């Protein structure tokens, strides 16, 4: 029997899918996968398709070419952007409380002048790029960005919410967990400055800590605004 999804989690999922459709309509997203729901007792996980364990998925693989390739080839993304960049997400809830999240933007390692048309899918263009002798003319060296939240792990060196870039052990502190829309807005505003959307009209789920004064080992609760 189909397990019932918590209505707050459902709302988050719906919002993510709505935003992906909106961005696809606006040709910012090339293709999106449906969000997977995995319910295990009081825990609910929202994630991308085809989770592939292995070295390409571990923390140290962050920034490696192998990671981009593995995510792309296994369809392990939630969407591919118009330039071949990938977006991946994973959110975990305990009932309605968000207890962890991970949003990843993996920029395409190549620069493409034409869009993906017909059979020229991102898979095809990537293969072509990696086998091109003049790859150095097309390579685009951008670091992936990942915003993680781990409610169980909040120390000075490892803030509960943090942003990774350039190095898998770099963790820039972020004040609060963020929603998918906030993440996408951040990526678009900072890394696609020539693309504009009416961000003010987007819906942003806001999260606050259960016990704001305590900093360590605190779960987060979901607050709708």
């Amino acid at each position: 029997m189909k397990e019932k999804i918590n209505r707050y989690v459902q709302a988050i999922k719906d919002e993510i899918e709505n935003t992906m459709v909106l961005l696809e309509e606006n040709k910012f997203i090339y293709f999106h996968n449906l969000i997977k729901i995995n319910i295990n007792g009081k825990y609910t996980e929202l994630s991308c398709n085809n989770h592939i364990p292995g070295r390409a998925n571990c923390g140290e693989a962050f920034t490696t070419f192998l990671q981009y390739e593995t995510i792309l080839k296994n369809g392990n993304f939630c969407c591919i952007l118009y330039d071949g960049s990938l977006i991946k997400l994973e959110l975990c809830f305990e009932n309605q409380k968000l207890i962890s999240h991970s949003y990843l933007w993996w920029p395409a390692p190549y620069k493409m002048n034409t869009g993906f048309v017909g059979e020229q899918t991102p898979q095809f263009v990537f293969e072509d790029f990696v086998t091109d002798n003049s790859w150095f003319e097309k390579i685009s060296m951008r670091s992936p960005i990942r915003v993680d939240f781990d409610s169980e792990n909040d120390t000075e060196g490892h803030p509960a919410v943090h942003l990774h870039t350039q190095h898998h052990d770099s963790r820039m502190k972020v004040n609060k967990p963020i929603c998918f829309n906030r993440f996408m807005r951040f990526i678009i505003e900072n890394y696609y400055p020539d693309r504009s959307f009416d961000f003010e009209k987007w819906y942003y789920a806001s999260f606050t800590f259960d016990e704001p004064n305590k900093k360590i080992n605190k779960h987060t609760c979901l607050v709708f605004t």
Partner: protein
Amino acid sequence: MELEIVRGYITQITPTENLIAALQQIYKSCEDNGTLYLGYPLSANSECKVTVDALLVSEKKGVIAFLYPKSSVDGDVLREEQDALYYQMDYNFKKYNSLRKGRGLAFEPKVITWLPASERCDSDAEYLFANECSLKSVLDELDDFYNDIYPALCEALQKVSNIKPRKKRKNVKEEKSKGGIIKAIEKEIANLDRWQKKAALEIPEGPQRIRGLAGSGKTIVLALKAAYLHSQYPEWKIAVTFYTRSLAQQYEELIRQFMFEFSGEEPDWNNLHIVHAWGTNTEPGIYSIAARQFNVTPYNFSTASARYGKNNAFEGICHELVNNFGYDTGKIYDAILIDEAQDLPTSFFKLCYLLIKPTKRIIWAYDELQNLNETIMPSVKDMFGVDQYGNLNISLESNEDEAKRDIMLPVCYRNPPWTLALAHSLGFGVYRSMDKVQMFDELSVWEDVGYKVESGNLEWGQRVKLVRKSEASPKYFSELLNPKESFISKVFNTEAEQYKWIAEQIYINIYEDELDPDDILVIFPDTYCSKRDYTNFRKFLMQHNIESILAGVSSGRDMFRIEGYVTCSGIYRAKGNEAPMVYIVNSQYCEEGTELIRIRNILFTAITRSRAWVRICGVGENMHLLEQEINNCIVDNNYALNFVLPTREELVRLRRIHRERTEEEVRRISRRKTEVNSIIEELEKGEIDIESVPELQQLLNLVKNNLECTQNEREDQ
């Protein structure tokens, strides 16, 4: 009755010819069917190679090996040779469960020493000797064979007993469910037919061409041939090449299986290369191997496209390599086996010619009918060129007593006969209310691809009724399937209705019909909309919790099928793949359009992906028209193609009208359509009239003239 001869590695020509003549004489008057394998590879591994000079397999007598004396005709030596071969045969056949009875073999293989023109031919109960005069009596005295193990014996001898169905289908409970039916189809004995046997095991001293419809077993034949050659000549450098990248894995698996049967060993991949036709920096291909041989940096697709255009990229780079650097280089290969030759440009074959050693053992297989408008492969002259005296570099002529160099595989194992007939009917527009869409250049191709004339004349401008030959399809299709259930077409009012119905059917297929999700293929014919159409369609699948992939987009580039997922695919990605159940979505796209030849080829390809069932779905008026064509073929003509062939002049006109266009032409036509539609709309609304836009009168006159010209052209023809 009949004696087939399969010419493999022939050790001694004269005794072989004598044996063939003697056996043919006997088979003229006896009630038995048999195959004589010349140079049959019983086993070959790094320590020992056993090749039987001639091996007769017959329904009535089982297995009889013929031995030619090597040096001595001394009785003891001959007996020892017989013992050694008997032991090898006994040992080899015992490996097969299906050929054993208790601890021993279910039959006794026989060994006869062939002593043509010799007087010393006294056989006893254990040791048999024969010459031209005594052969018949020696054979007559042999015990009859247990006929029920004959198919298993053929499997073992053809080395195909290890090709098992990919799926176990343990979930199938009902024999008559779709899952049960497809299981039965997949389990049909994997014996090679007579043409496949020749194609796989005959080794000509030169090139060989293998033709056949899609699904006629070309890939199996080439893989078997590669394994056979490799086991017999392990020191040879052999390349197996193709255009579809995903074939690499299939070839590797098949050749490994076959090699195990031949030698019980892993192939030596240093000498047997399974390579793509093009190749990349990391994976070698024929083109990139050749380029490196000439010390040239190989182009990749984007560079090649920039240089020669997307459609001519591969042709261009092969041509460049052959013309600029293709002189007197080191020949690399003893044999090159090429699959999907229809997808490869002529300059690629010239490149292969540069890489092949003087025996010129290039073997190429192609689909007789991959594209309905491109039935004829380039000539051998165009493919391989001529020498300085104008002689063909490669010739397909062979003598009667030699291995055949040109083999046609006439049986289509992939598609039921009625599915093929319907696909042809729609592909050619046989029952289209307006003009036909296209036609073969040579009408004889109809017979090559499995049709016979039931009435009328197969001549230009004449009425003809064509039906599928029964021998062009295996019997199991008509035993296990019926045309009504195999094929359904549906017209819907809206796309949503269509998607809903298909999703419901797929649910039934999985939960009632015992099919697996990955047995189901959903094809979107319109390449440019396939991603959007899929995104809309999958919502309906999700209502039933059915997971799906869009092949090549949400799965890896070469991954077409994932266990537990329904495969959805654009038409180009679907090419070369097949599935038991195929749904073609938004088929109205294939009814009408600027490039009708291309569009109808898409429909043909989509239908022929089906191994058993196909559902053609679509929306609106155009789908109604398509359904009329379908009904004309099925209901009115019972899957016969009953039509008037165009004249040659009409064919030229059809090709002109329905040809493929450049992107610019397509855009222009689309723009003009929109403009004309807005004129029509404004005229209907009374917003403009001829007085306010006098150019309309001019337009009207031009259209009238144009119509009259076309009419006259038709009448002249």
